[in-house]
């Protein structure tokens, strides 16, 4: 027990220590002119779904959960968000070329169709981000229509 106690103390110190390592926060209150709903005619309903279910990792503005400042959670979040934004950024959709916009739209539909997105590790905590079958159908139809018109 003595050893266990020592280990516990060391771990505790490490845990406290890592709290001081800063992370970059993904927050911005401007809606850029390149946002997907500025360049496309996105129905209000779909825009709301995108914002609730996708924007936390796929835009320049994350609405963080209360525990977001606790390490190592903050690192995990930062990593996820960086990866998500590199893959697709709704705020900067207009910066993609026509070819890439088409590619991205296609991937949005296929990820949603195959239940790959939103990530299950995300919806566990964000129950409201879960997509119903109806919502999925709505998005896929809109995406397909938009691709056809491109």
């Amino acid at each position, binding site marked *: 027990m003595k050893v266990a106690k020592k280990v*516990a103390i060391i771990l505790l110190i490490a845990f406290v220590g*890592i709290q001081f390592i800063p992370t970059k926060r993904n927050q911005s209150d401007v809606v850029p002119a390149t946002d997907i709903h500025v360049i496309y005619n996105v129905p209000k309903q779909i825009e709301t779904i995108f914002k609730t279910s996708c924007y936390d990792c796929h835009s320049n503005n994350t609405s963080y959960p209360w525990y977001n400042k606790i390490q190592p959670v903050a690192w*995990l979040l930062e*990593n996820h968000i960086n990866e998500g934004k590199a893959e697709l950024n709704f705020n900067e959709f207009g910066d993609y070329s026509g070819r*890439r916009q088409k*590619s991205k739209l*296609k991937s949005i539909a296929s990820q949603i169709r195959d239940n790959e997105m939103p990530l299950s590790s995300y919806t566990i905590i964000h129950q409201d981000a879960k997509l119903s079958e109806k919502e999925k159908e709505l998005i896929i139809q809109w995406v397909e229509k938009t691709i056809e018109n491109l």
Partner: protein
Amino acid sequence: MKNLKMSIAVMLLLAVSFTNAQEKEKMGHDHADMKMDHSKMKMDKMQDAKAEAVLADYFMLKNALVGDDTKKAALEGAKLAASLKAFDMTSYNEDEQKELADIIEDATEHAEHIAESAIDHQREHFKTLSKDITDMVAITGTKNTLYQQFCPMYDKGSAWLSTSNEVRNPYYGSKMVSCGKVQKEINN
């Protein structure tokens, strides 16, 4: 005691995320090595040898998909991503360069996804990738005769390129290997 358990859990999490990060770094290095090999190999050939290298990798990928071989397709996808990144467009004019940069960025992304996806997704990405590569060939040309083939069944109709006029369908593989027809012959 509760504290102890918590701390151990936290440390474990930390360890996992560190190893993850390290692995990723390693993978990055592998890619860089591969890229170098490619450029060394093709250096003393003709000017559009880089485009031929892209095509060669694309056909390897296509053949892996025809053979329903996910693992091989993933490997070829990674190779293709590397040869796309090694593409040198300095010999093209400004408009072509713009178009090529766009094509290559898109194609690289699809190739990278193919490197880490299951076969269904690989085929989805292969469809858009094939469009990208076809557009690339329209600019770069190629020393070989290519055949643009078309399967009306896959995803409302999908095309791909082949070096042979015999149809071997990469979207269905063994399920419907001969589905499709030659749409166009490319000689340039």
